[in-house]
């Protein structure tokens, strides 16, 4: 009886994860694409040296903590057993990076920047040591926003 209840809870969690997780991911991707389109004018350059000197600089930074749903994590557990691509983690990290970049860009856009130089990323697994729901990562994107002088 106990085992049956546990199985039921597991199934319900899987179902909730599948339904809400897929919807949330779809919504998130739609929002990312929309905002990326709006901020396309702001260019990110992985370059250290400035081509021009008549500008101001500002430190900008965007970060996000994002989790994957229970269904995908369970699926990833199976992949872990057999080997192969881990789609659950791929989309999780991709979403996190794009979101972090967008937040950094939004911060830069507020200061009327045109470019962001020397962008770096830092990724961290926040629940690495715990077994339950290990799919939670933090991604930070940071760089230097280049703001042209008002007269330029």
């Amino acid at each position, binding site marked *: 009886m106990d085992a049956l209840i546990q199985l039921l809870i597991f199934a319900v969690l899987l179902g909730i994860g599948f339904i809400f997780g897929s919807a949330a991911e779809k919504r998130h991707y739609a929002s990312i694409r929309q905002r990326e389109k709006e901020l396309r004018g702001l260019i990110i350059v992985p370059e250290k040296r400035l081509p021009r000197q008549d500008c101001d600089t500002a430190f900008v930074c965007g970060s996000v*903590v994002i989790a994957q*749903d229970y269904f995908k994590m369970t699926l990833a557990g199976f992949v872990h057993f057999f080997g192969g691509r881990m789609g659950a983690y791929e989309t999780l990290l991709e979403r996190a990076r794009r979101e972090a970049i967008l937040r950094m860009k939004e911060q830069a856009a507020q200061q009327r920047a045109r470019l962001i130089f020397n962008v770096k990323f830092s990724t*961290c697994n926040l629940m690495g040591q715990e077994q339950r729901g290990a799919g939670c990562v933090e991604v930070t994107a940071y760089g230097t926003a280049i703001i042209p002088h008002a007269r330029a």
Partner: protein
Amino acid sequence: MPKLLISTLESVPGYTISKHLGLVQGSSVRAKHMGRDIMAGFKNMVGGELKGYTELLQETRDEALERMQGEAEAIGANAVLNVRLATSSVTAGAAEVFAYGSAVLLAPSVGAAG
């Protein structure tokens, strides 16, 4: 120019580095509080952003940067260049943010365009 400039670049337009003052660093470790942790646990089932954690880590990062700037100010710098951030989860339920860079003394460059 703001009080203390931080940048991921190695130089600042319109200024030259007149003195290198060495590495400065700042770090901060914070734990999530219980309420947030339980909410995050629920959120972990359905996936998506954990806003509580995002804010928590932002505060942690701000504090790390502030400490780094404080250290730079204490040794007489007016800018920190080549700044890097690193996050690590030291134990389950706590995260450390570490910021470091090189403290320098900047002087306006002569004959610069700006």
